[in-house]
């Protein structure tokens, strides 16, 4: 068949200009974030004396990983054309469920971890099903979920524990092994690295694999870039979207368990506002707000920029108030760059 046909030497069309490697590079979704990351790195390398120490870099990577674990699935969802405003508080919900279930049932903490996974995935399914069964934009649907979870986090915790935080579970069975998995520290060459960095990198690898090399990846790009076209050629649009929300829920589960096992107790009011940080990281990483374009690696680099900026300001001993300013400026730059990329991609339409 066609598969056996010999590779014909490509004949250049005289109407097409040669594509320079630079121009090809500029077509990559990660480009803006890579340039930004290098700029931020150099900036703090110059202005913050302790920034280049190995221990400082490990701290930066840790901060980046806690954002990156969520930014990667959020980016996939955004490529699929949707938002999840409940992502921030879902992390707290996941941690609360895990902690309270183990404590109340006096069970091995791994039971709580398992129950938490099921509950969190169920929230993801709820978001996805609500979105695909009804008409309003995901912005509104997940805003509803966000408010409901925020209320439930506080309400249930007060109801069960009597305070706004959970009881300590550090003396319970299975705690140390769970801590090893979700919140341990690895010492490499005398430098302490948090295990979340591995989770982060693993998620980036899996997400990149899915996006670039699997059918589902093709569907994710398609439902975000042209939902009607995708549906018309038989792509399971609804299942793809529900799956993407479950991906975000899975990230929230990992983050939530990390939160629980590194601090032992969980504050029920945490997580509000983080959903925007994940979205910003994804956008800085080159994801189009309108969907259909972006990459997992870009989102990871977006998270890295976050980590470097938040910690770099501390290392430079500046007022941390400036963090938000940097963030806003970077978001604007990234959005302008994205708009330009999209224009270019659709230029000769």
């Amino acid at each position, binding site marked *: 068949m066609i598969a056996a046909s010999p590779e014909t030497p490509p004949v250049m069309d005289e109407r097409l200009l040669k594509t320079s490697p630079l121009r090809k590079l500029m077509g990559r979704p990660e480009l803006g974030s890579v340039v930004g990351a290098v700029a931020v790195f150099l900036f703090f390398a110059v202005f913050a004396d302790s920034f280049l120490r190995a221990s400082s870099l490990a701290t930066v990577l840790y901060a980046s990983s806690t954002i990156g674990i969520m930014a990667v699935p959020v980016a996939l969802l955004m490529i699929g054309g949707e938002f999840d405003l409940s992502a921030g508080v879902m992390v707290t919900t996941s941690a609360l469920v895990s902690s309270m279930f183990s404590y109340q049932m006096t069970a091995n903490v791994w039971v709580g971890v398992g129950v938490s996974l099921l509950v969190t995935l169920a929230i993801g399914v709820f978001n996805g099903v609500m979105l695909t069964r009804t008409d309003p934009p995901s912005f509104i649907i997940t805003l509803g979920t966000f408010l409901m979870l925020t209320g439930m986090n506080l309400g249930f915790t007060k109801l069960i524990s009597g305070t706004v935080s959970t009881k300590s579970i550090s003396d319970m069975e299975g705690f140390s092994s769970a801590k090893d998995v979700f919140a341990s520290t690895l010492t490499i060459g005398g430098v302490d690295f948090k295990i979340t960095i591995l989770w982060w990198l693993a998620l980036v690898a899996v997400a990149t694999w899915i996006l670039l090399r699997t059918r589902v990846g093709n569907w994710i790009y398609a439902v975000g870039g042209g939902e009607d076209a995708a549906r018309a050629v038989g792509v399971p649009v609804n299942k793809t979207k529900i799956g993407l929300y479950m991906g975000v829920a899975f990230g929230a589960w990992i983050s939530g368990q990390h939160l629980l096992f590194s601090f032992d107790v969980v504050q029920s009011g945490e997580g509000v506002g983080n959903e925007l940080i994940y979205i910003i990281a994804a956008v800085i990483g080159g994801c189009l707000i309108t969907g259909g374009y972006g990459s997992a690696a870009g989102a990871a680099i977006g998270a890295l920029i976050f980590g470097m900026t938040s910690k770099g300001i501390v290392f430079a001993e500046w007022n941390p108030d400036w963090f938000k300013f940097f963030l806003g400026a970077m978001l604007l730059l990234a959005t302008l760059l994205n708009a330009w990329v999209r224009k270019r991609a*659709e230029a000769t339409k």
Partner: protein
Amino acid sequence: MTETGTETAERTALVELDGVSKYYGNIRALEDVSLVVHAGEISCVLGDNGAGKSTLIKIIAGLHRHDSGSLRIEGDETKLANPRDALDRGIATVYQDLAVVPLMPVWRNFFLGSEPTRGSGPFKRMDVDLMRRTTHAELLRMGIDLRDVDQPIGTLSGGERQCVAIARAVHFGAKVLVLDEPTAALGVKQSGVVLKYVAAARDAGLGVVLITHNPHHAYLVGNRFVLLKRGTMFGSYARDEITLDELTRQMAGGSELDDLRHELENPPS
């Protein structure tokens, strides 16, 4: 010129609509429309804006279900559940504007929804090499020599995008090709390219439904013509029953056009 009429009447039609109607609430979108599609033939559906062409397509493509009348696919009466159902029965629809996802590379678009895979379990992956080569080869067959199948399909011209969509349907073994105004937004030369490819699909043994409001394009390739107006069918002809002039006249409004011409030729003094 292909022979039509008597000899095809005995064969089972690939798709046959008989007295099909569709209502949206209290709006009559389509009423009592009949259409036959045979293998190796092109059935044209002509009509002005709002004539019900889109509704007709959506019924054949499985996006909407008809309210009355019958839809037979290779003799079996059926109602299509969804677009996937239609595709599985060999009906591929190429829409005017939503045939492709503009930001995705050509090769990803070509195989969208039917991606070939290799490996199994967690390592099951798209056969990217095969996809790239097949896309290039299939497009070359229809005279589009793409320098780079990785370019976003949005960067192709309208005619090229139509051809990619048609090539895709043919490649995936469609028996019936439904084309929604494939030449509507195209220039003369590009329309010619697309029509040539439509004819090539017909010669390959596919049944084609060509939706258009251009009688000249329809008459170039069509074997039968169904004319729609305000949701109803006001004419159905085999090729030997009608001339291009008559077809054009009917499309343009028939006797209304005569009146108009009369008025324009003899301005009241």
